[in-house]
């Protein structure tokens, strides 16, 4: 029954026009960045590298498919949680608002399996979104600019990753981005259980992410103790894959924290939803 439910949820997502907003937004943004880089990428690279040019002599083909993909991933990391929340934040509250949740819950299926099937379908949608982003950014980048060594400029260092050493990092980065976005899905689904209005969970999800991101980026000592526990701190763990050597301890720690948050959000959603009176 669970697989049947999940398949039904996938069909519902596929039939909703809003499900394609994410795909369209990603396609447009990636194409705009790719074309902008093709048209005037060298100026952009000059601007980015000017701070390190005094200390280093940067030569060779820096603007390549891998760098463009890296730039695209960094640019879209703020927008993608919204695109995920558009679907998962609507999963319960949207059905409650539309009245279909009432019909659904008078059928012989457990409330727990309804939540989990909706989460699984939302996660599959997220996976599709991330893979689509990967195909467009990496495929499009390599097609237009070709491969090359990836130069990653951090605040105090330059990391040069050889062309042959980059592809697998992007694959893992996409997997970690999916893990982080699954957490966003779990959070928005939890919020979705509390209301009959689908806009509320989407806005609150984004508000939480923005608030936590601001706290995470502010250099105020009082926040230093809080930062390691904010899930937003760990949502950008994929960037660590482009360091050398790989900070495995930090990466694993972030993975566990992301997983832990996801499980806690889902558990609260399950407990609350099982006892919830359906009044919509």
């Amino acid at each position, binding site marked *: *029954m669970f697989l*049947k*439910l999940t398949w*039904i949820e996938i*069909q*519902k997502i596929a*039939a*909703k*026009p809003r499900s394609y907003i994410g795909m369209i937004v990603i396609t447009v943004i990636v194409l705009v960045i790719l074309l902008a880089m093709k048209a005037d990428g060298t100026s952009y690279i000059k601007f980015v590298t000017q701070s390190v040019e005094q200390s280093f002599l940067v030569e060779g083909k820096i603007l390549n498919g891998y760098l463009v993909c890296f730039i695209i991933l960094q640019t879209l990391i703020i927008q993608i949680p919204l695109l995920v929340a558009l679907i998962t934040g609507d999963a319960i509250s949207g059905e409650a608002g*539309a*009245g*279909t949740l*009432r*019909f*659904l*819950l*008078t*059928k*012989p*299926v*457990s409330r727990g399996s309804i939540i989990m099937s909706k989460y699984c379908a939302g996660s599959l949608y997220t996976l599709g979104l991330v893979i689509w982003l990967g195909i467009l950014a990496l495929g499009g980048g390599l097609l237009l600019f070709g491969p090359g060594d990836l130069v990653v400029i951090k605040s105090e260092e330059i990391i040069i990753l050889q062309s042959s050493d980059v592809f697998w990092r992007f694959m893992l980065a996409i997997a970690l981005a999916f893990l982080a976005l699954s957490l966003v899905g779990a959070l928005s689904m939890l919020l979705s259980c509390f209301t009959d209005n689908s806009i509320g969970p989407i806005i609150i999800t984004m508000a939480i992410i923005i608030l936590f991101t601001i706290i995470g980026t502010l250099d105020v000592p009082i926040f230093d103790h809080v930062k390691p526990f904010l899930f937003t701190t760990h949502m950008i763990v994929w960037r660590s894959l482009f360091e050398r050597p790989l900070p495995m301890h930090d990466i694993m720690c972030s993975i566990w924290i992301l997983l832990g948050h996801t499980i806690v959000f889902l558990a609260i959603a399950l407990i609350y939803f099982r*006892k919830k*009176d*359906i*009044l919509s």
Partner: protein
Amino acid sequence: MQESDQQKPLIEVDHLCKQYGDFNAVNDLSFRVFSGDVFAFLGPNGAGKSTTLRMLTSLVRPTSGHVFYFGLNLNEHRTAILKKTGSIVEKPDFYRFLSAEKNLEIFAKLSGRTISRPDIYQTLEWVGLNGREKDKVKTYSHGMKQRLGIAVALIHDPEIILLDEPVNGMDPEGIIDIRNMIRFLNTEKKKTILLSSHLLSEVEQIASRMIIIDRGKLVVEGEVSKLLNSDELIVSVRTTNPQQVKNEINGTKWMQKLSSAGGMNAVFNLRETEIPELNRFLCDHSVDVLSIESKRKLEDYYLKLISGKN
């Protein structure tokens, strides 16, 4: 279906209560529905009908009390019970962006039984939606959604059907169709039906047994035929001078049957056969009778209930 000590109820509602803060939506409600009943659940708006139906379909948890289906506690055997029931609570809502066929297919898959595509088409045809199966539900009228709701409730061939205000918002033709469907399901398909309504006239035409609830409490329970075909009538005589009526009947048997006299009305409690006799009496005593209206006691009681005068 006559209630008997030997017959076990299909649905048994036992001291059901639902409280929202200080508000008692349903207060110590108990009733039983037997196999073959068309059981009506009557009450004015806000009486607690929908809350009770929500508790009967496990959408809302009772504050106290129990619901039993086939002798099984709903709280403990929810899935097994819901496989044998089909329901529409409040208005039927569907996935607007999907076709009627797809909506029915989705709910059929969740019903716990294997439903074939011909079954889906047959059910859609039976509720009168053939030819519109492929249309998205967002193009459907309220009446069509109601029909699709009935199709969803029936698709898995349940033993018990629960319908919340099934003719609400429908046109006269639709009301007759739904009424006929309910009769057919009960008499031909042998389904037990529990329906809620705020229309006494509707209940009278469909139901075999009924209860009336008000402010979450049971106020009347019994067989519809007995409750509504009672001999006792409330007869309102409209006249130019009710005081003259009072004077003329003073010392006669009519005086004991006079309930009130005021404005332009004199109200009597009479049997139907006594109405012509009273009319003759008043005419013989030169009382100008403008009109005589009669209502059954239950009807009058219910009208007062829904107008908030009770």
